[in-house]
């Protein structure tokens, strides 16, 4: 059944304890680094989209140490618990949220069998633990003893609980195609870019977009960030938090962003697969003639590819966040219950029908057609982008792009 990656090297039972600790440490370390990188990325992306520079001062050319500095600052900040707060709930809330988000990483395969816990029902497990994150949010909101936080928490809870349903259903669409809930298995079935489930049939194609929308909402990302709507609720559920606990809340948020992106990458975008029809670990095992070496080298590449895909999706979320305006809470709920939920149910039934009714030849043709059309659209979009990229986004206002001779801004054009 499940195997720990390093199990092939060590046979002593004592190692299991050590290995478990190492694996957990690696994962939490990765999650931390990923969160730090994401925060930095978010600020840069926000800056670029809003026609400004973002962090520039700390740490070399792109201000890449900025988040680290912020983290340091947060760690040494005074830890304040409001008098009206429920001490215990106030303390425990952020950790529940973080635990929910972190536990999801446990089942997320970064490469071929490069996974903390190879579960048969990994995708269900991930959805389950990520759904417990919301409980932490509620406790944070309730335990703060503040109206802003309470409202934020309640909104958040309503929103996340609602969006979980279409999200889970859309995830089931590729599960039906794959016939497995094992993420490793699902990824291995998507070797070759045209075999990515995104292109498998019209329903999975639509399911991807639906899923991604739901995922953004359940990560309370804009335009669905009602829980922390600054104009209404100050900072929402984490209004009363500061210092390390605040940091934990944010780690949980960025962690779950990465996790849902990971699910999207695995379920629809071929996971760690580069898009070649061969599994890299097998390829390198063939080249080196050594299965273990192949596993190491191949998985190193796989990991880079997978993390790249996830960060790209995270980037898309940021892009959306800084592009679209925020919805009203009723609009958010309506979007979910009136549109996304029926759509996801339709997709689920549709894909089941597609699989059962159509002969394999037709399905293959449809798959190739969707792949071809998507690629064509992508190429056209890129061409269009290349054709227009020369033009400065002109608003008539002097902006960063035109400040050719301004000194002090390291990102400015020279």
């Amino acid at each position: 059944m499940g195997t720990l990656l390093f199990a092939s090297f060590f046979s002593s039972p004592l190692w299991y304890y050590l290995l478990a600790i190492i694996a957990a440490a690696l994962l939490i370390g990765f999650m931390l680094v990923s969160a730090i990188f994401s925060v930095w990325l978010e600020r840069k992306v926000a800056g670029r989209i809003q026609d400004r520079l973002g962090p520039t001062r700390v740490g070399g050319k792109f201000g890449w140490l900025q988040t680290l500095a912020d983290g340091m600052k947060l760690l040494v900040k005074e830890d304040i618990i409001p008098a009206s707060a429920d001490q215990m709930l106030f303390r425990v809330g952020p950790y529940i949220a973080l635990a929910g988000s972190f536990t999801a990483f446990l089942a997320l395969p970064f490469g071929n069998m490069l996974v903390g816990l190879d579960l048969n029902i990994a995708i269900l497990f991930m959805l389950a633990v990520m759904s417990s994150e919301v409980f932490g949010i509620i406790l944070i909101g309730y335990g703060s003893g503040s109206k802003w936080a309470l409202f934020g928490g309640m909104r958040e809870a309503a929103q996340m609980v609602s969006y979980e349903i279409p999200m889970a259903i859309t995830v089931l669409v590729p599960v039906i195609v794959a016939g497995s809930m094992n993420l490793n298995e699902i990824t291995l079935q998507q070797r070759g870019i045209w075999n990515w489930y995104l292109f498998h049939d019209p329903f999975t194609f639509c399911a991807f977009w639906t899923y991604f929308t739901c995922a953004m909402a359940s990560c309370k990302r804009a335009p669905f960030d009602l829980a922390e709507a600054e104009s209404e609720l100050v900072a929402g559920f984490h209004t009363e938090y500061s210092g390390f606990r605040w940091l934990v809340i944010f780690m949980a948020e960025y962690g779950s962003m990465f996790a849902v992106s990971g699910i999207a990458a695995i379920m629809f975008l071929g996971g760690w697969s580069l898009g070649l029809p061969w599994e890299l670990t097998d390829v390198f095992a063939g080249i080196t003639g050594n299965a273990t070496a192949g596993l190491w080298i191949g998985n190193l590449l796989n990991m880079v590819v997978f993390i790249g895909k996830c960060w790209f999706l995270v980037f898309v979320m940021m892009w959306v966040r800084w592009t679209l305006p925020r919805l009203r809470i009723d609009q958010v709920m309506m979007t979910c219950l009136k549109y996304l939920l029926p759509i996801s149910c339709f997709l689920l039934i549709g894909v089941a029908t597609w699989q059962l009714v159509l002969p394999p030849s037709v399905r293959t043709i449809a798959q190739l057609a969707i792949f071809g059309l998507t690629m064509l659209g992508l190429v056209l979009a890129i061409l269009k982008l290349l054709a227009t990229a020369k033009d400065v986004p002109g608003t008539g206002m002097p902006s960063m792009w035109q400040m050719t001779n301004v000194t002090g801004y390291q990102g400015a054009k020279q």
Partner: protein
Amino acid sequence: MSPFTNLEPFLFWTIACITGGCAIACVVTHNIVRSATWLLFALAGTSGIFFLLGADLVGAIQLLVYVGGTMILVVFGVMLTAQGPFISMRTSSGEWAVSVAAGLLLLSVLSVAISKIGKPTPPSGSTVAQYAPKTTLAEGMTKEGETNEVASKSPYSMAIGQGFLGVGVGPAHKETVNGKETVVRASYLLPFEIVSVHLLVALIGAAYLARAKRRKEAAV
């Protein structure tokens, strides 16, 4: 075979202590929100126990349904009915004493009963794999040239799913059908249907009960 075989004692004791402790804390605390929080930990611990027992599907469902759904519901209930931010209704110590005494009595009786049953060891491998129906996907579910190895790797979830779809998955026992001895296995389509309908009815009933009503005073 659980993935945790080698770690089982350590993990069991850890999780069991957390679960039991949280359950006790859940009983002891006066604050209802905290009680719910402790319950959450107890439930999460229970799901850990399920994972430990190799029932990962049940564990995941426990997390999804209980922790993700029921607990949210409970907390919503707490918040919707709370008059103050932290409500606690204290019970008299006499009642406490009686209840705890009765509880301890029950626990001791149960412990004795538990100690009286045999001590089976877990089977070395899954017997499901032996008698579970051939877990291949339906024709056309896979592309040409691909085997259906996927299915056989996960006997539990596959078998449970098939059981719910009406395939016989229970242990085989012989029965005389029309004068012929036949091997019969239990399947769970009917309970599944009943539960589905029950769930629907319960949801509609809950929605009906909980819908916003004007109070009597307001009507006058």
